[in-house]
Every structure is written in C-alpha cells, then in structure tokens.
C-alpha cells in the first residue's frame, strides 16, 4: 500500500456455504456505495469479491472475508482480505495463469480479480492456508 493507509471501517464475514458468498457480495456493494464508487467500479469490486469469496469456499474449504473502507489521506478505497486454512497453493504462478484451474471453474477467478482491482497480494503456504488481499481506490 502506498502512503499512510488508515482503515475507516472493517467487517468480518465468515464464509462457510454458498449463501455466505452472496452475503459478502451484498456487504461489499454496501461499502462500495459508501465510498462512492461509480457503477462500473462497484460492479468490478463486487465481482472480485464474488470470485475470491468463492475461492475461499471451494478451494480453501471455508474461511473469512474481511472487508474495510480504507483512506490514504487523499483517496478512499475498499480493501478485502480473504483468509482460509485450506490446503494452500503450491505453485502460485500457475494458479495465477489464465485458464488454469484445480477445480471445475473457468480458471479466471484469481487472475481476473487481479485485473479488476488496483492492488493484489497473495500469500499461501501448503497445508496452512491462503490469504488474498485486494484493494481498489476510488
């Protein structure tokens, strides 16, 4: 993150079933509206939340989403952290490749989310879990 980033508002939502992904999406939309994102940017952020939330559910076998409004003094934005204690990702570069999937999806969730957001950070340890943190500035 650039500059002094302060967290204005944070919420944690557990992800354990597919309805929770819908809840994450709805909550992200509420926060995105509060930040004042345009309709296009709102849709981008919500879609990224949907992708990453579903990854947490399907690949990480459930976890948490932490959504927050951030502020670096000049701009406001939205930051989302998706954490799971799943099997982890052995080859991050491969996982980030368009079209590669370890499941049955399209293999565009991770790479697509990266393109939808301004900041993207993925940390993973095999057998421990995965955390994906993304942010988008207004």
């Amino acid at each position, binding site marked *: 993150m650039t500059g002094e980033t302060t967290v204005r508002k944070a919420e944690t939502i557990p992800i354990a079933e597919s309805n929770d992904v819908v809840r994450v999406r709805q909550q992200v939309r509420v926060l995105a509206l509060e930040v004042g994102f345009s309709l296009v940017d709102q849709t981008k952020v919500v*879609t990224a939340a949907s*992708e990453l939330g579903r990854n947490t559910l399907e690949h990480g076998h459930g976890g948490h989403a932490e959504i927050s409004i951030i502020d670096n003094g000049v701009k406001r934005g939205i930051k989302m952290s998706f954490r799971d204690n799943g099997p982890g990702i052995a080859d991050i570069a491969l996982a980030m490749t368009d079209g590669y999937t370890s499941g049955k999806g399209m293999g*565009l969730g991770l790479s697509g989310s990266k393109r939808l957001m301004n900041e993207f950070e993925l940390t993973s340890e095999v057998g421990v879990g995965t955390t994906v943190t993304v942010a988008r500035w207004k």
Partner: protein
Amino acid sequence: MVIMKTLLQTLQDNGDRIVADWTHSLRSATQRKDLLSERDLESQAADLFKAIVKVPAETKISEFGSPAWRPVKDLVATLSVSRANLGFSPTETALFVLSIKPAIFGTIRQEWGSDPDRLFSEITVADSFIDKLSLHSTESYIGGRDRVIARQQEDMLELSTPVVTLWDGIVALPLIGTLDSARTQVVMETLLQAIVDTNSRVAIIDITGVPTVDTLVAQHLLKTITAARLMGAECILSGIRPQIAQTIVHLGIDLQQIATKAKLADAFRLALEQTGRRVTRIDGAQAAQAAKAAKAAL
C-alpha cells in the same frame, strides 16, 4: 421419581371445569381472533385436554419422551404447525399451552390446599409438565416455519425462471437476481425443456436483472448455451449493461462464440432474422388497411 397418577386422576375428575376455566382465560388473553375463531380455539383446547386426560395414569412425567405422551405431543405439534402457517407469533403459540396453568393450579389448590407439601409437589409436577409441552409446541412451531420457508424458497426458484414465448420458435428467459448453483440448475433445465416443448430454434437469455456476472455465472450461462446448441437451438445473450461488459472483459471471459446484444429488443430482432423474418414499417394506405383488418379480427 415423580408420578402423575394422582394428579391425572384429579384432572380427569375436574375436566369440565378446567376446560371451562382454560377457555375463559384463553378468551380474555390477547388471542388472534382474526386468525382463529373463538369456537375453533375452544374446541382445540378441549381436544388437547382430552388427550392429556387419556395419558395412562402410571406414566412418569420425567419420561416426556415415552410413547404414552405421543398422542399429546402429536396434537400439540399439529396445532403449533397450523398456527405457524396461519401467521401466529411463537409467543402466541406457546401461550396457548401455557394458559392452561391457572386452571390446573386452581384445581390442585382445591384438592390439596390444606396440605402444603403435597400442594407444592403436585404444582411442581404440573408446572414442569406444562413447560415441557409448551417447549415442544415452540419447537414444532419452528419446524413448521422452517417448512414454510423451504416451500417459499422452492416457490421462488420456480417463480424466478419463467420462459416466455416471444414468437413462434423464439423463447426468452429473463433472468432476475442472484444466480447461484441451485437456481442456475433450475434455470438451465427449464430453458432446455421449454426449447423442446415449443420446438424453438432461438432462445434469448436476458441478464438485465442479474446484478453480478462472475466466472461461475458465466460458466453456467456458457454451459446452458452449449447444451441448447446440442439440441439445435441458437442462444442470444442480451441485457449486457456497460458495467457488466467491462467486468467480463477484465475477468477475461471469452463470449466471442456467442451472439450478444445490449438490449432484449435487439436480440429479438436478431432472433427474427435468424428465423427468416423481418419487422418492417408499413406506409399510410397499407397501415389503414391493416388497422381495419385488425379491428375486423376482433
């Protein structure tokens, strides 16, 4: 071990008065006369009391799970579920059972009022019994509510996937709301079935009402479109709003193999063309003639 024997006998002997007292307190308590008539309420109270009196005298109250209590529990469950369906609140439902307490306690006092120890033990027995019954009532009520919710969810699944025939051989599926696995499965099946039933060659899937199109939704759409193709029908995807279009591009979803349109009207025009039709404007004289023919047809 507490045994109901003497208490049950007493209740049986005073049955008529207890029911009278109970219905009296039911009537004065805030009951929902708009949902349940007074007569129904009274007959339910009488039925429930009859079931209580029928429990074998040697039954132990600590064994609320024993078969002897089954008829009473079943009756309470049925009444509670019907109240859940009628729209009673959980409190109102539990109150129906709880409101028998004063009537029963009054009877106990009359019988054993001179013997405090006995009075206390009988009241304890009756109290714990009625509490268990009312808890059972609440549990059944929640169960009934759960079933109502499950039914509504099923209704919604069906409601939200109407396939409409736009023209001979052209069907449209306007999608509204969140597309998650369960719904998408229903959507896909309804559309494919409608294609067969109406013998359609073109199917329009309109996603104007879908707030988020992520890779899962896109994948479901692509699968549906592929399946429709296998059946000989072409699909047109319409209702792609600007924000959805940009998101799809960023996600990297390839929709180039699919005919897409921004508006349903455009998709319909394309569908007409694909089935060898065209919409044309007609000139003055012809228009008058057509209007006349239309009137005659009425």
